[in-house]
C-alpha cells in the first residue's frame, strides 16, 4: 500500500532563517505531488505541484520554492523565512497523470519567531 511521510512534524524557526521540509511517498511510482499551506481556520491553499522529476509548477507568488530531486521526493524550501510563512504545511500525492483522489501526509507545523 502507498504511504506518505512528512518531516519534521513541528518546526520553530527565527525570521530570516532558511527552511527545508521534506515529503516522500512509498508504494507508487511517478506520482503527482503537491504542497499545500493551511492557515489557522482557513482552507488549504495549493502552493506547488509536480508531475515529474524536476517539473514544478507554482500556484502563488511567495517566499517559498519547491524541488523534486527524485521520483517520490518533494521538498519545500525558503532562503529567508518571513513571519507570514507560519502555518501548517501539507504534502499530498495522487496517481499520475492527474488521477484522484489526493492523499495527504500529516503535515508540518511551522512557527516563525
Amino acid at each position, binding site marked *: 500500500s502507498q504511504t506518505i511521510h*512528512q518531516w519534521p512534524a513541528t518546526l520553530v524557526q527565527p525570521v530570516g532563517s532558511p527552511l527545508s521540509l521534506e515529503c516522500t511517498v512509498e508504494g507508487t511510482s511517478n506520482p*503527482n505531488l*503537491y504542497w499545500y499551506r493551511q492557515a489557522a*481556520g*482557513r*482552507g*488549504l*491553499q*495549493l502552493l506547488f*505541484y509536480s*508531475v515529474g522529476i524536476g*517539473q514544478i*509548477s507554482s*500556484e502563488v507568488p511567495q517566499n517559498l520554492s519547491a524541488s523534486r530531486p527524485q521520483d517520490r521526493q518533494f521538498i519545500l524550501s525558503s532562503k529567508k523565512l518571513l513571519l507570514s510563512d507560519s502555518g501548517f504545511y*501539507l504534502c*499530498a500525492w*495522487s496517481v*499520475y*497523470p*492527474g*488521477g*484522484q*483522489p*489526493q*492523499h*495527504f*501526509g*500529516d*503535515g508540518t*507545523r511551522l512557527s516563525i519567531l
Partner: protein
Amino acid sequence: QQQVKQSPQSLIVQKGGISIINCAYENTAFDYFPWYQQFPGKGPALLIAIRPDVSEKKEGRFTISFNKSAKQFSLHIMDSQPGDSATYFCAASMEARGGNKLTFGTGTQLKVEL
C-alpha cells in the same frame, strides 16, 4: 470562478442527529467533488467523493447529495457520533494539464455532543 464556498463555519449536533454541511461552486468545469475529514494535528483524509453524473452517493453513514443545476453539493452525516467531531472540507477539481488541482472550501468544524 475558482472558489468553493462552504457553510456553516461551525456546527454543533447532538449524538444520533444528522449533520449537514453545504458547498457551492461557480466553475462548471469542475468534475470531481471530494469531502475530506481532518482531526487536529493531522492531514485531511478522504471521506467520500462524487462526480457530477450522479446525484447522490452513500458510504455507510456518509452521503453526498449533488445538485448540478444549482452548482451545490452537501455532506450528510447520519447518526452523528462524538468520534465524528472534526473539521470537514469540501473541494472541487477538474481535469487539467499537469494534474488535477483541488480547490478547497474554508472548512466546517463539527462538534457532536453527547
